[in-house]
């Protein structure tokens, strides 16, 4: 128990994730929001506030895009605000919803995340070229995959990790996604498929990477007293954490995400978690690249530094393993509409803890789960801990 009021998730909504969806960003927001409200048996009248999340305006092609989305996210004539922490936004939007209710200012809060990456034409990668320092990086023609390749390579070098070990993550997550009704890239692939896929930026290959996507996700949050009237099966937000590291990413050792560890420690402290691998039953770490799942398992203190590849090889992280990781299929399998993908992970933990994940349900009646997202110049971590 922490905060002025304990906060529950009482409903969740999700659209399909696809490379191109016909729906506009507004229409995607509406669909996810409506599903979340319907699943909680609520209408917009029951909503006091809205926490919205979306990644760069350059994707949707609308400056101040949060303002453009207000009506479709249920924010008309309500207190509405948008949080934005790059790729960390999806999970962070749920954190923002938490403080709206935990502060005692509002009984309910809609949490909505949207990304319409396909509007950035001909390729969303264009938008990413403007995330870099205009003096030190942009003149070199820096791309997003370059910098992640640099991080992946450093991580492999420091721990002596092989590409074959990392590829197992992609194989697992794409397979898990076969059971997700919204998934873009569910598939049965092999380690060889990953290793034989096109080299993008060595050591990153085509099948190491999540796709670009359109999609939206939403949650309904309520304070304890209100939640108990809405549902017999609330899921509690018991810890939130976030952290940013220095802008000067070339001055850091990229082999380990300190900022994820700091964010996790903040959330675990709130949730009273002392031994994460023992106390956490299911986790959705951010996996826009396969190595990131491993990197983030380590940052989340779910294993020791450099140990995540071994756990993956041993099958510990499979859906039926001792510590299921990304049972949804993650970004690699379900897709990566950035902010919506992060919130999709929170939705997944919500469904897993309620026992509503259908074919994706992890065994053993999970009680505690964690979702995490990552962003900016390899510098942002956002973490949420949920309990049944």
């Amino acid at each position: 128990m922490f905060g002025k009021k304990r906060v529950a998730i009482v409903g969740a909504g999700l659209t399909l994730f696809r490379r191109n969806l016909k729906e506009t960003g507004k229409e995607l927001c509406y669909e996810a929001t409506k599903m979340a409200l319907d699943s909680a048996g609520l209408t917009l009248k029951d909503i006091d506030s809205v926490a919205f999340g979306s990644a760069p305006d350059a994707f949707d092609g609308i400056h101040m895009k949060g303002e453009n989305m207000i009506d479709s996210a249920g924010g008309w004539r309500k207190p509405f605000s948008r949080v934005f922490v790059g790729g960390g936004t999806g999970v962070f939007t749920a954190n923002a919803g938490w403080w709206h209710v935990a502060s005692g200012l509002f009984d309910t809060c809609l949490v909505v995340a949207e990304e319409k990456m396909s509007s950035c034409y001909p390729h969303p990668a264009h938008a990413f070229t403007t995330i870099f320092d205009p003096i030190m990086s942009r003149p070199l023609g820096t791309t997003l995959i370059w910098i992640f390749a640099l991080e992946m390579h450093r991580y492999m070098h420091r721990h002596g990790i092989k590409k074959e070990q990392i590829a197992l993550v992609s194989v697992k997550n794409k397979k898990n996604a076969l059971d997700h009704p919204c998934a873009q890239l569910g598939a049965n692939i092999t380690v060889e498929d990953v290793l034989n896929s096109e080299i993008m930026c060595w050591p990153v290959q085509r099948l190491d990477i999540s796709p670009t996507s359109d999609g939206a996700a939403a949650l309904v949050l309520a304070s304890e007293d209100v939640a108990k009237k809405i549902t017999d099966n609330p899921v509690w937000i018991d810890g939130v954490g976030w952290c940013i590291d220095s802008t000067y990413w070339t001055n850091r050792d990229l082999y380990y995400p300190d900022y994820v560890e700091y964010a996790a420690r903040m959330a675990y402290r709130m949730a009273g978690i002392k031994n994460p691998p023992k106390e956490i039953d299911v986790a959705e770490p951010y996996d826009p690249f396969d190595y990131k799942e491993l990197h983030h398992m380590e940052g989340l203190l779910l294993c020791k530094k450099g140990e995540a590849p071994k756990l993956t090889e041993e099958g510990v992280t499979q859906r039926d393993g001792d510590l299921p990781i990304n049972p949804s299929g993650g970004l690699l399998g379900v897709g990566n509409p950035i902010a919506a993908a992060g919130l999709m992970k929170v939705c997944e933990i919500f469904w897993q803890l309620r026992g509503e994940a259908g074919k994706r349900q992890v065994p053993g009646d999970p009680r505690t789960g964690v979702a995490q997202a990552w962003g900016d110049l390899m510098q942002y971590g956002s973490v949420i801990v949920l309990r049944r």
Partner: protein
Amino acid sequence: MEDVAIVGVGCTGFRPITPEFSYKEIMFEAATRAYADANVNPRKDIDAFITCGEDYWDGHSIFDEFVPDQLGAVLKPLFTVSADGLIGLATAYMLIRTGQFNTVMVEAHSKASDILTFTDIVAFGLDPIFNRPLGGHPYYIAGLEMTRFLHETGTTKEQCAHVVVKNRKNALANACAAYGADLTLEDVLQSEPMFYPLNRLDTSPLADGCIVLVLASNHVAKKLTDTPVWVRGVGWNSDTSWLESREWGRAIYAELAANMAYKMAGIKNPPKEIQFAEVDDLFSYKELQHLEALKLCGRGEAGKLTEEGITQRDGQMPVNVSGGALGMGYAPEVLGLQRVLEAALQLRGQAGRRQLCDVETGLAQSWRGIPTATGAVAVLSREVK
């Protein structure tokens, strides 16, 4: 319930251009001032950092990548609210009220002089299907709104011009203001017509600058300072994104935000309980429209009160003693913190030549500018009520 106070303020600027400094250096200076003012070390004493802004103002996608170092926030809980600084302040208020955070920093900055295509950026905020293809300078939206406001309330262009004369003059006494000037009504009314009925001097010119605030919970605030400024109420709200179905004559967002803030602060009779106001005046008529929305006067009365001098620095209800955005300059997303900064200095008795006598409670209000219908309100006091 934990009360929340402003315990430190820091400001750099405002100036029309600042070619000698990068935005990082401007932010570092404002942050250093705020931390010194609050007597805190950001590396140890601040529990969360909030930065307010938008990508296209800064020219970076994911601009928060570039902010932690100069704010002392490396490996600390920092995040962006894509909003005006006053919504950032409301967010800090919520964080402290959760009981998990004792000290929170709020920052907003503008390096508008780095933007070479400001008008195009504003137009890029319009709906891409319905509005953007129609072209034109997006400030025509303010023209549409002003026309309707004048029509519904009987307010005159001259009354709006009085706002400009007052605020630019007030700015002369504010070292942080970029555009202090001694103007006449004729200067304003005869300035170049821009977006009828707006003339050039009815609009706020751009400025660079940064404001950093430090907020703290009751028990920490009392240890840090003898002059805490209490945040008694906050509110924020938005009317529809669709231009076509918006209320043009009334600032609904400000009415609703004020209702929320007044309720929280226990304010029943705003004109009696609030002694001065800092309200958004990005365009001259906005000050009048906002005063009415905030119920500081009746509908259609703000123009007359302004003409009569009631809102002058020595009037009964001083408004924008700082100079407002017209006098301090339009620093996108910093507008709300400009208003809060002035209110805090007045309540602390540190406003120098602009100091008002015996002020206990003030109001700060902001609007996010074209094309939004989003705004926020804070009620600030010397005493916890």
